[in-house]
């Protein structure tokens, strides 16, 4: 038994076995997901005509605003590519996304993980970033045939390379084990970070694509007795509420797989 624990903790040899066995236990997730499926169904099927009309109206308005905002997108993108060419840096490419649905949340309070209904058969790979409508959520750590397991950015074992959107200061945001907070470590007390700053992924480390919102700084404590400032941030993504999420296929990684 000790051998099994050590093998899984220290070596990668069990990964293949694990993904095979994971495929076998999927039915339990499906059954455990039935209550939330039912409430979803009830929300979409048992609504009054008035509510539906209102929602349709709201969505049309929202769509109009978003379309208006994207009008300049094409020309801005072209400009961005031209300027990057002038600077001799590589062009930023657009990432593809696939919609996935949450079918399970880790029952263990010390683990911040979720299970998605997309797996190896949909092209999901280990290390793939996951976002929702508001920001970065985490990365895939286990893939079975039809499901995958995602480590959220707030897990104590997770860190994201970030930069402050306002001035480009780089830092690393680590999970605290609670869904509402990230901690930015090893930032010297004189660094220009303020409450309200948006932290976006910096793309360093090659795991997460550049520029997705990660968190918003909520508290900065500068204690002269300490070498570093203590900085807390609130994740932008709705980590405990999103049911529909997006798996990002970054160009280089998708080519590698």
């Amino acid at each position, binding site marked *: 038994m000790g051998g099994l*624990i050590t093998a*899984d*903790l220290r070596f990668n040899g069990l990964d293949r076995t694990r993904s095979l066995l994971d495929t076998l*236990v999927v039915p*339990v997730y499906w059954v*455990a997901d039935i209550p939330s499926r039912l409430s979803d169904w009830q929300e979409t099927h048992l609504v009054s005509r008035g509510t539906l009309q209102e929602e349709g109206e709201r969505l049309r308005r929202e769509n109009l605003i978003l379309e208006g905002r994207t009008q300049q997108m094409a020309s801005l993108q072209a400009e961005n590519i031209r300027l990057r060419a002038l600077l001799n840096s590589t062009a930023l490419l657009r990432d593809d996304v696939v919609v996935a649905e949450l079918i399970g*949340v880790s029952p*263990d*309070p010390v683990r911040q993980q979720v299970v998605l209904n997309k797996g190896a058969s949909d092209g999901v790979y280990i290390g793939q970033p996951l976002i929702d409508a508001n920001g970065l959520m985490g990365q895939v750590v286990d893939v079975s045939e039809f499901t995958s397991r995602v480590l959220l950015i707030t897990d104590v074992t997770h860190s994201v390379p970030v930069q402050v959107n306002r001035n480009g200061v780089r830092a690393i945001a680590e999970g605290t084990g609670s869904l509402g907070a990230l901690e930015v470590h090893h930032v010297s007390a004189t660094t220009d970070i303020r409450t309200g700053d948006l932290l976006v992924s910096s793309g360093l480390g090659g795991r997460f694509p550049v520029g997705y919102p990660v968190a918003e700084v909520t508290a900065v404590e500068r204690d002269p007795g300490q070498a570093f400032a203590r900085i807390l941030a609130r994740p932008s993504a709705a980590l405990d509420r999103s049911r529909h999420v997006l798996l990002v296929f970054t160009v280089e990684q998708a080519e590698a797989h």
Partner: protein
Amino acid sequence: MVDRAHGYWVVIASLFVAAVLALVPLPAWLVWGRPEWVALVLVYWCIALPHRVGVMVALMSGLAMDLLEGAVLGQNTFALAVLALLSVSLYQRLRVFSLWQQAGIVFLLIGIHQLICQWVQNLEGVGARSLLFLLPALSSALMWPLILYLLRGLRRHYQVV
């Protein structure tokens, strides 16, 4: 002569339901107190059918729980195997105990289970930072009467021996 495989599906079905209950999302204030359903059901079957349910069943359901929780392979497997071993060796005494004495023993058993899980999680570096991880021992002990009456009813109804 009773067929050995007779009614074994009741054991498997109850463990499946326990696994589902162990996965159903709970509100944030309740997550630390979730009873260890699989461990409870396993303890019941170890006491009721010690000649049929024991360490092997514990190993199987433990492996399934490790996969479902995304834990290190071996965490629940080890903890549930120890739990089954203890329950099988205690079954003669446990059967004559009163309900709340049994609940007291269940409290200890689940406590041991939690300690082992905690120990493996600390190897991984994700262990709890407070004694809250022992709360399931209490909630499981409180659930014991329910499990006992429910599973005993099922066992008698389907005549699993």
